[in-house]
């Protein structure tokens, strides 16, 4: 009998590499990761192995996979002896919550402004577009810093609202452009002629038609919001203790790079993989939902 292994053609590492970079594989991995993140974030309180705020100074800076009297520390402990696994799970919950709320807030603000701009036109439209252009060119971090300098840090609701504003101008631009196109199409006009109110025209007829474009924009906005929130938290002006964000953990991990580098690595890797997965899913969504790219796919 012939050895079966000899019959299968041996694929070189190079060819295997070429095959594995095809996007179909990545999209499954990305979706799987996002599901894990979402489940962890939703059920954080049930999954978390121990109290994430409990301080044990005797167990400071334990390396990953060590055991103390509190239990098993998969990712070690931080400078106050708190379990990093638990902290990351709780931080993930808050970071995802902020990013999700932030994305929705940005979409609502942007879409409303876009509708107003398209509906009134004229000088209203001009003024809105000046704001949109300015926002598009101004780094949002700078505006966030200006607001945080005045309001102070530590107000979680205000912070979520602030982070939410990021990207409003992109929603506004998309909504305005597509609404103008929709208004020209005639179906909006016919609803109005049949006696539909302005609100009805925009919310029931135009909104569903531009929904695909908004979903795509949300998938782009979501990772940007995660990175904005974690950056601000990393800089110490975002989420404040006792709450914790992935950016906070990374920030204090930075002080222990010499003797406990793993503290900074894990939260950073979680942010990176989550943002990357969302971008990959976003790309895929764009190809699937956007009728223009679907027709002449490059």
């Amino acid at each position, binding site marked *: 009998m012939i050895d079966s292994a000899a019959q299968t053609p041996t694929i070189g590492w190079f060819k295997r590499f070429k095959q594995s970079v095809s996007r179909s594989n990545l999209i499954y991995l990305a979706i799987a990761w996002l599901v894990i993140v979402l489940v962890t974030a939703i059920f954080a309180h049930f999954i978390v192995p121990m109290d994430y705020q409990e301080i044990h100074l005797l167990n400071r800076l334990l390396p990953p996979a060590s055991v103390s009297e509190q239990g098993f520390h998969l990712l070690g402990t931080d400078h106050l002896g708190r379990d990093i696994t638990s902290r990351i799970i709780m931080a993930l919950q808050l970071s995802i919550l902020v990013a999700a709320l932030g994305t929705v807030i940005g979409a609502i603000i942007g879409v409303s402004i876009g509708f107003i701009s398209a509906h009134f036109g004229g000088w209203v439209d001009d003024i809105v577009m000046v704001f949109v252009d300015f926002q598009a060119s101004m780094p949002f971090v700078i*505006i966030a810093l*200006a*607001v945080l300098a005045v309001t102070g840090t530590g107000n979680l609701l205000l912070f979520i609202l602030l982070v939410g504003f990021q990207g409003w101008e992109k929603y506004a631009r998309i909504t305005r452009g597509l609404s103008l196109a929709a208004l020209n199409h005639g179906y909006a006009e016919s609803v109005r002629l049949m006696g539909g109110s302005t609100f009805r025209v925009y919310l029931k007829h135009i909104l569903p038609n531009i929904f695909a474009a908004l979903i795509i924009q949300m998938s782009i906005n979501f990772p940007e919001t995660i990175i904005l929130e974690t*950056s601000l938290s990393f800089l110490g002006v975002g989420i404040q203790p006792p709450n914790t964000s992935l950016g906070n953990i990374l920030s204090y991990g930075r002080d222990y790079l010499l003797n406990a580098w793993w503290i900074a690595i894990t939260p*950073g890797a979680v942010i*990176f993989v989550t*943002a990357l997965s969302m971008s990959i899913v976003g790309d895929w969504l764009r190809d699937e939902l956007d009728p223009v790219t679907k027709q002449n796919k*490059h």
Partner: protein
Amino acid sequence: MNARYIFQKITRAILTLILVVTFIFIILRVTGDPVVTMLPDDTDPEIIEQMRIAWGLNKPIWEQYLDYWVGIFSGDLGHSFLDGRSAVDKIVERIPETLRLTVTSFMFMLLIGVPAGVFSAIKRNTWIDRTIMTLSVSGFSLPNFFLGILLIIIFSIWLRWLPSAGSERSWSLVMPVITLATAGAGVIARFVRSSVLEVLGKQYVRAAIARGMPSHRVILFVVLPNAAIPVITIVGFMIGTLIGGSIVTETIFSWPGVGRLLISSVTARDLAVVQTGIMMVAFTMILANLLVDFAYFLIDPRIRLGSSKGDNS
């Protein structure tokens, strides 16, 4: 010549400038009395009143607004309450270090992003294209604070090749520049790719190939100049990204630039320095956008000659 285009762009820049200054003024004055915010709660009301007179906060709001404009034109934007120095001086002395970091990163970003994007477009749907695009998406999903820390762990702590902080030596630039440029290079590569792909589908490119023009000449002299126009737009946006990113990068590498000053001023609520810094960033961005508009004007004959949207696709 299309003078109207230039006039329109300059008007818009001035309008935006007025908007920004007004916006900053409103944020700083209307959201609360800066003296009350800054001083401890148990300060003597008389001292608060003295401070308000010294800062001109007892005047009517429109007079304060005018004073504000006078201050901007005379380069006086208040003093830091930490050391009493002029806020403008404190920012200006740090600009050279920030420029050194951002300009180097900008060049690095273009040097990597543009060729990668062009190459990816030419080799589209091959493994080369997919690898470059995967790297590009990874690049802009990688938060720069994490990239910076990874670099420090690898090159400063494990290999001990590069300094983790400061800006004194020339190789101090290496890690901050990689940290700052990677995301932008990824964005540019992606954008260049799609804009080159779009041009490749045009009839004039097929015509050039049909005339027997060698392919490298088609790319260099036909495709790239036409693909440059949308790329300039994204390059304009990248300046903003660089300024935003420099704040994080300077913090990670203890780089003595404007970004780090801005963060410490926000934390200390040193409002004079914060507003000066933000205003300077805004002015830079307005100027950069104006330059981008002029670049269109120089590159795109359709704008220069003022013809209506002619598109020979």
